[in-house]
């Protein structure tokens, strides 16, 4: 590889190097400094770029002044010996170094005036060794893609995943690629609650999960509407809904909450149907006039709203939750299309499914053998800041889900609205472009890698570019996420190639 520049100096947390005036280096590029004496390679991430000149600052001011004067006079001019007089300075964050084939944390610094060059694919051997069975993209160095697939080991999905990006930066493309990648293996159950109806069909000229060549076997879809492909009708029985489920969705006063628990205690699984069907006066009497009719009136209105939903049925046998759980345990991607539903309906579906998943896995935990056979599960929530605050089933999963192989994938454009304590439970971050400084700050303080030096890079991420952090990653990994349509096109190509090989064989 061609030499780009030479290390100038500084310290263990910041290395600066000089490179020629005529060369371009981008923020986020990964470079290597060679220690030829000790046969080591130091990996450096470019975090800032500066101007350099072999003269005083005054010289620069004066030269600019002369240029401006000649510009104004429409006079031609040139600058000689630019390569000697002018140069650029790259400020880098040391990522670590390889010696004896092992990647180590940056506890040493490269020698004075080490040669700096761009990292080649071979230099990333240590990354290739890392297990990545859910590939989502390619390693990115600045704006350049490197032929190294990045993603994460599926065993990490129960340690929770955060996908953070402002609108248009590629959240749903990433999630589609993630699901598509998981569908190749069938080793992980992934539940996607899709409030925007963008995962199944795709949208705006892009493809959806239904176009995945393995969709027939690896994808199960539930929807309250008719879809263009095979799907199940989304139905939930009123008898499945608990007080805790609706407590996560509607605000209640202490008195109303007490009343709900009393009703649930009295009527058991029928509580919601009975609350809906009985008159307030009747309920007042049933509860020995200890609860006011005004309280029942409020609760009844909420209950009637729930029961009025098209996806809620009084028929105890009409429910899809068990079937959703079974598909997940078979390692399938389960897409629950909640588009067109009211927000409370969408949240209710998510809450019920999440509660049942955690509950079933908790029960299975007691039987080690059975639990061992369960695949890691991931529950994906869009606009996760709505449900990840205070208490509730999603917060509970964030805190204790990993023990029971239940992970949460929080997709949000406002991570600052998620409690810091909850966010710290998320071990894997996919950081796409984040414009808001408050969002970047909370991400920096919660990530499992030091992101303090990559603030500018996060700020400058373009659509489809990401930083991936997870425990065990050598550093925050820069990635370009596959474009979903290209990704499944490749899968189709692989499938066709496989079929042709088989035909020839037989």
């Amino acid at each position: 590889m061609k030499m780009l520049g030479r290390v100038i100096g500084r310290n263990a947390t910041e290395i600066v190097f000089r490179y020629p005036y005529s060369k371009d280096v981008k923020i986020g590029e990964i470079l290597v400094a060679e220690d030829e004496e000790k046969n080591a390679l130091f990996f450096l991430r470019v975090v800032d770029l500066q101007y350099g000149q072999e003269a005083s600052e005054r010289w620069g001011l004066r030269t600019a002044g002369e240029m401006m004067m000649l510009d104004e006079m429409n006079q031609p001019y040139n600058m000689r010996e630019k390569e000697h007089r002018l140069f650029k300075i790259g400020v880098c964050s040391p990522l670590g170094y390889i010696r004896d084939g092992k990647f180590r944390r940056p506890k040493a610094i490269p020698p004075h005036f080490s040669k700096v060059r761009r990292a080649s694919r071979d230099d990333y051997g240590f990354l290739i060794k890392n297990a990545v069975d859910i590939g989502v993209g390619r390693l990115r160095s600045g704006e350049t893609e490197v032929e190294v697939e990045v993603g994460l080991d599926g065993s990490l999905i129960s340690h929770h995943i955060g996908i953070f990006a402002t609108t248009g930066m590629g959240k749903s493309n990433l999630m589609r690629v993630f699901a598509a990648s998981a569908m190749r293996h069938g080793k992980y159950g992934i539940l996607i609650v899709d409030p925007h109806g963008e995962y199944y069909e795709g949208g705006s000229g892009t493809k959806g999960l239904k176009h995945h060549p393995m969709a027939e076997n690896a994808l199960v879809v539930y929807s309250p509407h008719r879809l263009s492909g095979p799907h199940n009708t989304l139905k939930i029985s009123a008898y499945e809904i608990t007080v805790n489920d609706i407590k996560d969705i509607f605000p209640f006063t202490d008195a109303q909450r007490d009343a709900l628990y009393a009703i649930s205690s009295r009527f058991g699984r029928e509580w919601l149907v009975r609350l809906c069907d009985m008159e307030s006066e009747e309920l007042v009497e049933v509860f020995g006039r200890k609860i006011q009719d005004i309280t029942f009136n409020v609760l009844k209105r909420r209950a009637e709203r729930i029961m009025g939903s098209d996806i809620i049925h009084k028929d105890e046998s009409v429910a899809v939750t068990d079937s959703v759980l079974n598909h997940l345990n078979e390692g399938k991607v389960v897409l629950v299309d909640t588009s067109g539903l009211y927000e409370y309906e969408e949240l209710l579906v998510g809450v019920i499914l999440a509660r049942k998943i955690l509950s079933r896995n908790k029960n299975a935990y007691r039987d080690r053998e059975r639990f061992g056979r369960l695949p890691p599960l991931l529950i994906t929530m869009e606009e996760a800041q709505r449900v990840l605050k205070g208490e509730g089933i999603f917060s509970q999963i964030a805190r204790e889900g990993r023990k029971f192989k239940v992970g949460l994938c929080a997709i949000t454009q406002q991570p600052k609205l998620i409690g810091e304590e909850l966010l710290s439970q998320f071990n894997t971050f996919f950081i796409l472009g984040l414009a808001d400084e408050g969002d970047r700050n909370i991400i920096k303080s919660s990530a499992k890698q030091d992101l303090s030096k990559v603030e500018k890079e996060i700020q400058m991420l373009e659509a489809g570019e990401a930083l991936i952090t997870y425990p065990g990653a050598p550093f925050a990994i820069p990635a370009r996420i596959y474009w979903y349509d290209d990704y499944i096109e490749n899968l189709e190509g692989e499938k066709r190639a496989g079929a042709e090989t088989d035909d020839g064989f037989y």
Partner: protein
Amino acid sequence: MDENTFGRAFDYIREVIERSRNFEGELEIELPDGSFGASFNERMFKKFDGCERARGAAIDGSSFKILSGHSFIVSGRRAGYVIADEKGITAKKIGDVEIDAIEKREMKDIFAGKYEEVMNRPPKKFPDSMDETIDAIRGLEEQVMARDAIDKLDEGDIVMMDGSLEGSEFLPDVIKKNCNRAMDMGVHLVGICKRSDLYTSKLPVLSWVKNRGDRIFSRQRWYYPLSKDKKIYIAKLHPFSKFSFRVDINPMEKEAEEILGKIAAFSNDVPYIGYPYPLAEIHRNVVITSEDGLYYRKALREMTPMNGFTMDDWDDIFFDYHEYLG
């Protein structure tokens, strides 16, 4: 200090300013090695055209006092040259830094030794101080570089020395020898001064010429022949330059305008508009900075214990009570 102290000083400055504005006539100008008569007359200004192409060498040197032991000093010197055309530098020769200790009693012998190496005969005049000796040796080394450059150039090329061709009273024969050699080779030899101390009877010569030249030939190249015999000119080398420079041309040359035109070909580099960029480049290459000086001082100091002496020995030699006073 009372107001009269400032008043007396300013009266002098006032007179200098007024003369630089209004003077017209003849004056004798002092040089280190004699004087010459010069006319100060606006009609003598001439404009000239710059050449589009030129090739030449720029020569410069640098010296730095590293240590003073009061009766001796340790200094570093370096000289070199670059060869350039109107597009850029094509070759360079930069000498190593020479570090010497010079003692008062030995300085004449040292200068004589260096001079004889170049001229094969002793100098006619000797520097009076150690500092002057170092400067004279540096000047000698620059002339050696100039000779080397002359030999590498072709007919019609130009050698640009940093400083005046009349600048050193200790080296006139050396400079003359180079002027002869340059003429023989068809190479133009010039000296260009970044700073001019041409001065006579309260008239700052450069200021007088510059102000009038810019007024008469605004936004054009011009020159003023200060001495046609000695071929000393003051020239503005780029139409939009804020500066003009004293240019000494080999006194044996006949035509000045063509030579000034060639210098102008090098003088349109935007950081140094109006100054030949090869001279700026060679200056950058040979200069011994104060940081370099500190490094050499440190390196010498570190040799003291390695050679069986103590740091007290060192301090005793180089101690200066001024440092103690702060």
